[in-house]
């Protein structure tokens, strides 16, 4: 199908952004929500058609999914071969991504109709949502590593705008600032990586780049041979690019912004910080996967270890948090860690490429159930007006729909068959098992933790103690939630249940050949068992009101404290930024400017003044001294003359 129609998928949200951004606030605040939603419906439908079209009609040429570039035009040209091109890049993962993005975004749009009702800046909110959707779609459809960088920045800023949506809350402002700056720091790495890769491979275009760097070309040889500080240029490039990805995907140690980002409205968290933007890093690595796996396994190793560590790290912290959104945030981080190390342990083509497929598959399912979790949490918060677990409990009677859907999501993420999470996780673990046992064990343990903290969350929201509304007035008037909020929950829960049955390997694989994913019972059992264990543990501890949890936390008090304080990462960052950078660089440079540079100028001025004050006595009004000077002048000339000639 024609490029111009595909181009509409990102452009329609852009149009609605412009419309709402320019006129929404004044003229269309009433209908702005519907404008946004309709535009999203349109592009969601369109992307579904496109994906269908790609997967089943046009995409496959003799059994291999092709990489198709459409509507390519030059945006900036730096040299004959290095130029920033804009275009639409169609391949299995981008197709999968546009479906996810548009669909989740649509869900969030609908949900927000209810959730954000009565907000003063309703129109602005929808404008930002559309902006984000546009940038995210542009990101996934990029055909050029620089194009992806541009949209990368754009999603960053729209996330910034949405986090700081409640901008009169200082905490929200701080959080948005943190999110932007941390990811910007990562993007610095990304940018330098791009520079290295671009001028190593003499191109910015993904296709050419991958071709050049996976086959034996002079560029590849050059990049491998030229080394800096012991690493080859290629390794540097890929690692720096991965750093960018890690920043967006909240991998350790760049994860600190994600929990704070929960200051944003909950639907936003569902869209940006759970389903779509945070997986951009995974997507980026997947984009460059052939280069990683074929030309630079070392970098891929790094990806794997960073991924597994982050997932364990986050899971541990998640067990201790009491703010439900933060729990979800850490679980997101942990799940993305899963995807990362899945990529890290994957090989290329055939069975070896299982990890890649698994990672993408998990991305897909995770998007569904994590969005569902967030939206569910959203409606709980909407009902309770609090994020804290202690204000909740026993809500199952009051909000049945939310309860059921939330349960489904929890089962999915805990990897209980036949829910979707089970399938993707199983594949990941299989891939890990085949390549790296250590990672496999850790992953398994993490799976257990995941199940535990999710059900800790579930029980303490919906069971545990009886619910006492802390103030009647607020929640007396509304029931569970308006249908606009229930509908997305239901739809998503269906998908969270069913997504697992998609024969994913058929569509998405590292090399484009369909991958028959066979089912190993032996490898399927352990995660399930561990997951169930986790669930049971949570059941025992949090099903009813008891002090078991305190006991346990007392048991590992140090660990508990450390985890509760997120292992003091924030404090460390604070120390580095405040004490080191601020006090050791910013303050001195300002001081230098004020005193040395400026001082030099003022000094030279005052020096001149001083001198003129100093020599004023020369003009002493005494006639004879003038004459003496006159005579001295004559003598001086004579002396000068003498010196010159003799």
């Amino acid at each position: 199908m024609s490029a111009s129609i595909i181009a509409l998928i990102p452009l329609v949200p852009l149009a609605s952004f412009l419309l709402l951004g320019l006129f929404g606030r004044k003229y269309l605040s009433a209908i702005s929500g519907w404008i946004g939603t309709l535009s999203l419906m349109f592009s969601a439908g369109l992307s579904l058609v496109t994906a269908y079209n790609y997967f089943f009609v046009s995409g496959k040429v003799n059994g291999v999914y092709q990489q198709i570039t459409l509507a390519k035009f030059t945006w900036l040209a730096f040299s004959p071969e290095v130029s920033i091109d804009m275009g639409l890049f169609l391949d299995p993962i981008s197709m999968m991504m546009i479906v996810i993005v548009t669909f989740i975004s649509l869900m969030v749009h609908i949900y927000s109709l209810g959730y954000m009702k009565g907000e003063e800046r309703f129109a602005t909110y929808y404008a930002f949502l559309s902006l984000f959707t546009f940038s995210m779609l542009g990101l996934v459809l990029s055909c050029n590593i620089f194009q992806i960088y541009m949209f990368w920045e754009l999603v960053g800023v729209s996330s910034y705008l949405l986090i700081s949506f409640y901008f009169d809350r200082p905490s929200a402002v701080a959080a948005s600032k943190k999110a932007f700056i941390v990811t910007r720091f990562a993007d610095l790495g990304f940018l330098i990586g791009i520079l290295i890769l671009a001028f190593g491979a003499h191109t910015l275009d993904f296709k050419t780049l991958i071709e050049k760097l996976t086959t034996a070309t002079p560029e590849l040889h050059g990049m491998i041979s030229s080394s800096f500080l012991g690493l080859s240029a290629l390794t540097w490039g890929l690692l720096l690019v991965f750093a960018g990805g890690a920043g967006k995907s909240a991998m350790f140690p760049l994860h600190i912004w994600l929990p704070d980002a929960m200051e944003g409205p909950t639907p936003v968290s569902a869209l940006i910080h759970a389903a779509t933007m945070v997986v951009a890093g995974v997507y980026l690595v997947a984009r460059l996967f052939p280069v990683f796996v074929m030309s630079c396994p070392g970098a891929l190793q790094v990806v794997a270890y960073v991924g597994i560590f982050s997932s364990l790290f986050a899971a541990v912290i998640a067990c201790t948090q009491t703010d439900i959104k933060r729990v979800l945030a850490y679980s997101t981080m942990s799940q993305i860690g899963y995807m990362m190390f899945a990529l890290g342990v994957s090989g290329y083509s055939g069975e070896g490429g299982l990890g890649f497929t698994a990672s993408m598959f998990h991305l897909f399912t995770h998007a569904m159930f994590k969005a569902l979790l967030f939206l569910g949490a959203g409606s709980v918060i909407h009902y309770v007006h609090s994020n804290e677990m202690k204000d909740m409990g026993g809500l199952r009677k009051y909000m049945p729909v939310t309860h059921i859907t939330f349960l489904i999501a929890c089962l999915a993420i805990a990897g209980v068959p036949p829910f979707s999470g089970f399938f993707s996780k199983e594949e990941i673990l299989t891939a890990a098992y085949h390549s790296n046992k250590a990672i496999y064990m850790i992953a398994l343990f993490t799976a257990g933790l995941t199940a535990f903290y999710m059900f800790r969350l579930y029980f303490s929201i919906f069971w545990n103690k009886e619910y006492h509304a802390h103030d009647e007035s607020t929640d007396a008037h509304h029931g569970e939630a308006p249908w606009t909020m229930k509908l997305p929950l239901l739809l998503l829960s269906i998908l969270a249940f069913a997504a697992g049955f998609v024969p994913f390997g058929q569509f998405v694989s590292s090399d484009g050949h369909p991958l028959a994913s066979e089912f190993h019972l032996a490898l399927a059992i352990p995660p399930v068992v561990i997951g169930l264990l986790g669930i049971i543990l949570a059941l025992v501890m949090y099903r009813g009101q008891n002090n078991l949890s305190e006991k346990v936390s007392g048991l590992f008090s140090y660990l508990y404290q450390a985890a509760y304080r997120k292992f003091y990462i924030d404090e460390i960052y604070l120390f580095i930024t405040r004490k080191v950078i601020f006090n050791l660089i910013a303050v001195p440079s300002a001081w230098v400017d004020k005193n040395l540079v400026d001082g030099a100028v003022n000094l030279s001025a005052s020096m001149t003044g001083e001198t003129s004050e100093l020599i004023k006595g020369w003009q002493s009004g005494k006639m004879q001294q003038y004459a003496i000077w006159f005579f001295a002048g004559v003598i001086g000339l004579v002396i000068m003359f003498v010196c010159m000639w003799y």
Partner: protein
Amino acid sequence: MVLSFLVFVPLVTAIVILLCRSAGQVRLAALTGSLLQLGLTAFLLLAYTNERQAGNTDQMLFQYRTIWFAPLNIQYHVGVDGISVAMILLTAFIVLAGVLVSWKIENLTKEFFFLLLLLSAGAYGFFISLDLFVLFFFLEIAVIPKYLLIGIWGSGRKEYSATKLALMLMGGSALVFVGILGVYYYNGSQTFDMLELSKSHIPVAIQHFFFPFLFLGFGVFGALFPFHTWVPDGHSSAPTSASMFLAGISMKLGGYGCLRVATYLMPEGAHEYQSIIILLAAIAILYGAFATMMQTDLKYINAYSSVSHCGFVLLGIGMLTQTAIIGAVMQMVSHGLMTALFFAAIGMLYERTHTRAIEKMGGILKLTPFIGTVFFIAGLCSLGLPGFSGFAAEMTVFMGAWQNTEIWYRIATIAACASIVVTAVYILRALGKVMMGPVLDEQHADITDAGWNEKFATVLLIVAIVFIGIAPIFLQHLITPGAEAIMQNVSRAGF
């Protein structure tokens, strides 16, 4: 297309303004005059592109020359290439915006607009002149109006800042003049004509001696570290439109001069001092950015960030690759528009809240959505967000800088890239403190949003910024031939 109109129109406007009776007439005259300028430059752009499409490959178009001082072989010689056209367009935009923003000037209205238009005449003349003497003439015309604008209508330590600015710029132009004389006497045939000079070969030793004079001289205008110190004081004491003009155009005179005069006429000199230039530029970029983090006065913030951003211009020039030079020019245009917008926003805010200290403000976005949005756009553009001009320009500079394969220059480039983070830090700090958060000062509660003139001005600038940001290729095409001509000289000289 008669280029001299670009000089005459502002001059005539200025004279008309002198003849005006009432402030209203003055404003009207100024507005029409600046609109006329914009129209003229638009026409120039059209004519230029037509000529190029018609296959006219002369280096300079619309040339006109006439003897001025025959015995010294000084000619009034004007002509434009893409670079000049870009700068001229920038000037027109900023002048119009400046006139609109300073619409409400009450004290000595007539003089104010007179000086403003005199400045613009100087800038146009500088950008079109191809004769070094004429160029210098226009360079110096601009000094005194700046002094008076700051001194009379300024705020804060205005006299100190004005004097400092005037003297440092005078020092810069003194150095420039020495350099020009050197070029004049050593190029074989005593001429000031840049085109002839670019062909005639100046002895290498001479270039090594005189290049620093020209480069430093113009560098003072372009806020080259450590000669940037007039920038913060001058910008922050100046009235809004003067700040816009200073940061938007005057600093560009420096960059343009470094490129068009120093580098173009003395390529060997440029090669000789390349490393120093790059070092200074990198220092300016980072150091300016870090110094900005410490500022609490909005104008100082923007002034220091200007130092940092103009560092990119010098970095691009210093790298001596075509892409980098294109990037430098793009950065000049982009920074001109962006910083003008920022100053305009600050000025509007200052008129209403009567303070520029960021800790005294808060939640302005809630009170005046329009100004708030303008602030956000300016800020995001300055931290290099895609879709705004800053991003395209900076990326071009980086790309071009990276093309220079020398490892130390690449490290300098990385250092320069690092500034995007620092920029984000201080911009978001300012935005967060001023625009967001709760409303601190209840007196601010009743401030009004932008008036028609301010809206017009800011929208004008924003449109330009966004256009360049979305389709930088046009600007790049405009600049490329000029950059090629310069690169020919440079590569003839060096590698």
